[in-house]
């Protein structure tokens, strides 16, 4: 147990900082915030696509991967340095995470040689992916999904509906879970298909968040023909891939989550001073309590990362999503409490320094639901980490 970094790791950090100083787009430096994007066509602006490509071409997109996949074969500890450096500068790698964070690692693990050729474009962002998981009747109970893919000689015929599909309106491809055998128990009849979003029979209808932004969509499939070779993994072998997909999503997300939470707490300190509440003992204790949560979660993330880097499973990661999403919601609430009567005001004339807290509060509702609700996370911790019996 030690805090110091090795000389090699410090050199890695120096190289990264030099790259970022030279290449970071100015739009990002002026405080680009996805919360400000109202138009779904602007969800991934061109400059952000260019940035992702630049990262890839210089080996800084996923630095733990080899150069042909946008990396430089760095060590797990260096990946941690990379993620922390980006987070501390409030930089994002991409405007659309499914391709590089879920599709690429899943194809590398389960895809055949032909399908793995899709990986570089997914990581570089040249192909935008969406993930077809949730359905109107399959939310937390994902295995209950009903979108049907009938197996024909050399193709599948897909009928059904997906919902809450992020980026569907700008995606070229969908990583889509479908039911290929309704006679088997529900976990055992699911397959994964790669579906081109421009295939005839697909209808995409954007859904607006309560925050006003349109980040996700409903996707309807009517007699959609999908070639047989687009099956990933074995027929009826999709469930195992869903489990892997979400693990990939969670493994690195905590770094950015903790950093944002810490930045929100710094914002609370500034806000308390501005609003004349910095001497209020109740506000002070609540800010300290939020900081304690953030600092202990960062330590837990590091601890999990150490076992992850040594190749052990890291149950710590299972805790991070649940804790971060609940904690950041509470931090936005505290910002509203400090703001007092200005809390619900969105008019920038009156609330320029306070309105981001109520906005953040509204955005935060999604985080305790999407990607596995907090209740599902508790089930996972209880059953997979603590070994409690399922009912």
């Amino acid at each position: 147990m030690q805090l110091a970094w090795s000389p090699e790791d410090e050199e890695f950090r120096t190289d990264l900082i030099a790259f970022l100083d030279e290449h970071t787009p100015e739009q990002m430096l002026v405080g680009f915030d996805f919360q400000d994007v109202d138009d779904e066509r602007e969800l991934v602006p061109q400059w952000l696509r260019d940035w992702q490509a630049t990262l890839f071409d210089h080996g800084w997109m996923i630095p733990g991967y080899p150069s042909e996949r946008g990396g430089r074969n760095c060590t797990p500890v260096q990946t941690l340095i990379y993620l922390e450096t980006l987070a501390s500068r409030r930089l994002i790698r991409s405007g659309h995470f499914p391709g590089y964070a879920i599709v690429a690692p899943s194809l590398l693990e389960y895809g055949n040689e032909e399908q793995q050729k899709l990986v570089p474009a997914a990581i570089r962002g040249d192909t935008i992916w969406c993930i077809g998981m949730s359905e109107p009747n399959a939310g937390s109970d994902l295995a209950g999904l009903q979108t049907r893919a009938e197996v024909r000689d050399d193709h599948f015929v897909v009928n059904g509906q997906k919902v809450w599909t992020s980026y569907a309106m700008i995606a070229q491809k969908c990583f889509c879970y479908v039911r290929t055998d309704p006679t088997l128990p529900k976990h055992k009849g699911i397959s994964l298909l790669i579906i081109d979003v421009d295939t005839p029979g697909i209808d995409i209808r954007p859904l607006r968040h309560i925050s006003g932004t349109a980040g996700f969509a409903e996707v309807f499939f009517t007699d959609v023909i999908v070639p047989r070779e687009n099956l990933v993994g074995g027929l009826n072998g999709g469930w195992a891939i869903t489990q892997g997909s979400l693990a990939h999503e969670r493994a690195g997300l905590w770094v950015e989550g903790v950093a944002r939470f810490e930045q929100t707490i710094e914002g609370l300190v500034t806000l308390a001073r501005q609003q004349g509440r910095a001497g209020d003992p109740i506000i002070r204790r609540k800010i300290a309590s939020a900081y304690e949560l953030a600092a202990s979660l960062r330590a837990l993330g590091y601890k999990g990362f150490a076992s992850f880097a040594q190749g052990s499973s890291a149950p710590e990661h299972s805790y991070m999503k649940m804790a971060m999403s609940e904690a950041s919601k509470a931090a936005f609430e505290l910002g509203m409490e400090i703001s007092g009567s200005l809390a619900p005001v969105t008019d920038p004339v009156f609330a320029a320094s306070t309105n981001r807290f109520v906005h953040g509060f509204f955005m935060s509702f999604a985080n305790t639901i999407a990607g596995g609700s907090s209740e599902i996370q508790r089930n996972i911790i209880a059953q997979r980490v603590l070994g409690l019996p399922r009912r």
Partner: protein
Amino acid sequence: MDFSLTPDQELLRDTSRKLLERECPPALVRAHIDDPSAHEPLWRHLAEYTALGTGPAADLCLFLEETGYAAAPGPFLATTGYAALTGDDTATGTVALVDDSTHPFVLEADRVERIAVVSPGPRLAVLDVTDVPLRFVATVDFSRRLFALDLPHLTAQPLAADVYARWRERAYACMAAEMVGTARRIFDMTLSYAKERKQFDVPIGSFQAIQHKLADMSLALERATAAAHYAAMTIDGDDPERARACHVAKAAAGEAARRILKDGIQIHGGIGYTWEHDLHLYLRRATADEYLFGTTGWHLDRLADLLID
């Protein structure tokens, strides 16, 4: 940066875990309720490890997680704290903090040879325990013994303020490590019970209400454990974050211990609050520990001072 244990640290953890499991079973903690000498066979073993007091905080904290897990009676924590403050690791000792509302009583004073007294200034005096009249102070915790001292006139030497501040930070991390250990004991007992105890023909641990309580307890425990390790690392690395990290560790340990002892007894049901069941031995230790070296709220307020002022 490396959060993993070195091979030596793994050995230390395994050795201390086995030692305490063997030498400090619940029966010893129970015997200690009426017979303070019951700790003596255990102390003959623990006395061999008091040099950890002047070594790396990370090593000491690993050991203290195990003494906390066993609710070990005796002057181990007191002696390591004395050694860290005075540099004297040849005698058994304890530390008295005069005029400090966070720590008005003195740990294990009737079982040690020396008392280091920190008085305002700060100033430091080291006394022979035989020169100080002691009064035993009963608490809910039968595994620790607290004393009030009737201190004579002191001839004290100046103590560098930063040395004392660092010692206090180390004490917070040590206390956090012990508390995390005790909380883990209660958590482990509760988890086993939830898997064994059947109601409505199934283990109660299959009910979602129980599972979600245990998940939240487990999160509190794991983040407090990580915070204690991180605090020890900042001490050993002399990191600028150390003051904050040590307050975080003690506060997180206090929250985890309180949550786990309350929900632990709730999940045990009626058997959990009987005298015969061992749960209360650990529950008492966890309850009282929060009030040693500053409560959770006190540490949060000091953290606020560092963050806001």
